[in-house]
């Protein structure tokens, strides 16, 4: 066998796994999205009616846009909370720093379902949050404000995806040479100027990456809305899930998934472009 052929064989072996487990399933649901269902049977009869139904019906499109808006809120909220935490950890030194970092990413090692139930318990009528707010006299009695609505989905997703935001922000802060901070101080900048003009721009790629993680994870999450969303916390993930699980309309579910995938790829592409435009 020639060296050329050997290289191709090696490439084929390496490529087999992702093709088999990633590309083929995606191709399969893309193809399914052009089929239609009649009497509970999927008919291989290529047409665009699923896409027409999605874009032509405000119930679906509205839910989809609402979900995008929800995900954007999750991103902004988790960055607003995660950036200061990452910054705080970064400013520590030695063992304290890595102990704190470990604590911050610890939730990643816990079961997603356990975290959901814990949050549901905390946000509920007799939950920790209500008891605290009543305890400090902020509320007269327990409130339904925090559970089984869109707000609950937002809070829960933010809490669950926070470690995914903290970690890349911390890593991008970690990559800033300390010498740049010395140089900034040397040139007369105070702590705020150094943060605004040096630290923040240089940690932006990591912040964008963290935001993308949160966005994409939130976009595909259908369990969280199911668990804490009640009737108003309806997201496109739940719609897709119901098309597959309840309505048995796989082609329509595939079509919505395809739109979701396209939007996710577009957002990732935009984020990657924005991050790469920073010269670091």
């Amino acid at each position: 066998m020639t060296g050329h052929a050997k290289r191709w064989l090696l490439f084929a072996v390496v490529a087999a796994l992702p093709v088999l487990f990633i590309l083929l399933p995606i191709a399969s649901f893309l193809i399914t999205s052009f089929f239609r269902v009649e009497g509970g049977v999927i008919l291989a009869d290529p047409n665009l009616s699923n896409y027409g139904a999605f874009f032509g019906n405000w119930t679906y499109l509205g839910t989809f846009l609402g979900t995008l808006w929800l995900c954007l809120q999750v991103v902004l909220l988790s960055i607003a909370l995660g950036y200061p935490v990452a910054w705080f950890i970064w400013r520590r030194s030695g063992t304290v720093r890595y102990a704190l970092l470990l604590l911050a990413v610890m939730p990643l090692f816990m079961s997603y379902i356990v975290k959901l139930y814990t949050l549901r318990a905390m946000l509920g009528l007799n939950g920790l949050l209500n008891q605290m707010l009543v305890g400090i006299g902020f509320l007269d009695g327990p409130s339904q404000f925090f559970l089984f609505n869109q707000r609950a989905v937002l809070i829960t997703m933010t809490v669950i995806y926070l470690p995914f935001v903290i970690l890349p922000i911390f890593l991008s802060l970690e990559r800033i040479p300390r010498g740049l901070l010395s140089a900034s101080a040397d040139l007369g900048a105070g702590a705020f100027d150094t943060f605004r003009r040096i630290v923040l721009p240089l940690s932006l790629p990591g912040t964008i990456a963290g935001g993308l993680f949160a966005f994409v994870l939130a976009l595909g999450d259908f369990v969280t809305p199911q668990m804490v969303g009640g009737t108003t916390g309806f997201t496109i993930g739940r719609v897709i899930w119901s098309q597959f699980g309840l309505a048995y309309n796989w082609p329509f579910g595939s079509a919505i998934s395809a739109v979701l995938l396209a939007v996710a790829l577009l957002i990732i592409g935009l984020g990657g472009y924005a991050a790469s435009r920073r010269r670091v």
Partner: protein
Amino acid sequence: MALELVGIRKNYDRLEVLPPLDLSIVDGEFLTLLGPSGSGKTTVLRIIGGFARPSGGQLMFDETDITDLPANRRPFNTVFQDYALFPHMTVRDNVGYGPLVQRRDPARSARLVSETLAIVGLAAMEQRYPSQLSGGQRQRVALARAIVCEPKVILLDEPLAALDASLRRQMQLFLKDIQRQIKTTFVFVTHDQEEAITMSDRIAVMNGGRIEQLGSPRDLYFQPKTKFVATFFGDNNIVEGVLAPGAGEVDTPLGRLPIDRRGMPAIEGRCIVAVRPERMRIGGENGAAIAGQVAEVVFSGPMTRILVAPAAAPELRLDVRLSSDAGQPPPQVGERVTVVFDPSDAVVVPG
């Protein structure tokens, strides 16, 4: 007197890296802190710049105590060893950073930035990013970024270490030229003695946290006061010996060598005799003579280096430099010769 270090010292926990040190830096001079790594030279620079707190002592600037002033409020600027240019800013924004964060008048600052970029020869590159520049150009940006702030003192931490030899020589002359133009005090840290000699008005030779000797390059080269300075600065012929009180001769393994005690500190007992290679001759009269055999002849352009094994101690080598165009051909390897030097060219320091 511009900048004064009074009993400045530095400990890391129990470890003393800098015993109490006094140093006066004159307004407008080019002062070099020269020493091997671990000699404390960078620590001194970091303390002056405000990046390290001294464990004791005072830092005075124009009769004001600035020991506790943070780095961003000192009228000093630093050229860092790795340049520390801001990667997300253009050359122009890097240079304009100081005036910007110091809230200086924008119109005047813009003019000053342009002038400074012209001085360092980077006017055409002001829209480039640091990653698009060569090492020498980055060096110039770092320098421009410091001088545009019109500091009273510029601190340079081995700024030429990362450059190749020819570029380094070019930058040495360039730095010296800039310093003459802007008449600012430069405090320069290096471990390269040739660099120190080329650029400095005064050199402080540091070793183990102490200043071994402070003086002009000429003083340090021809009048070293310690063995460390005599060996650190350029090539030297060094031989250990014993000096009797008041005597005009030193007992060495090479025999009794006459010395000239005029202008020399009172030394007795164990000592070191040092003679520069270019102050030694092959043959001739008048002076101290050492018989030996030529061990090696090395032609190195303008000078020819002749290594002589003395007859009294054949394991030693005397280093003699002769001008290559002296008229007569250099001695051959194996030839018996007499190495001669003038006693007034011999430096004696305590051993």
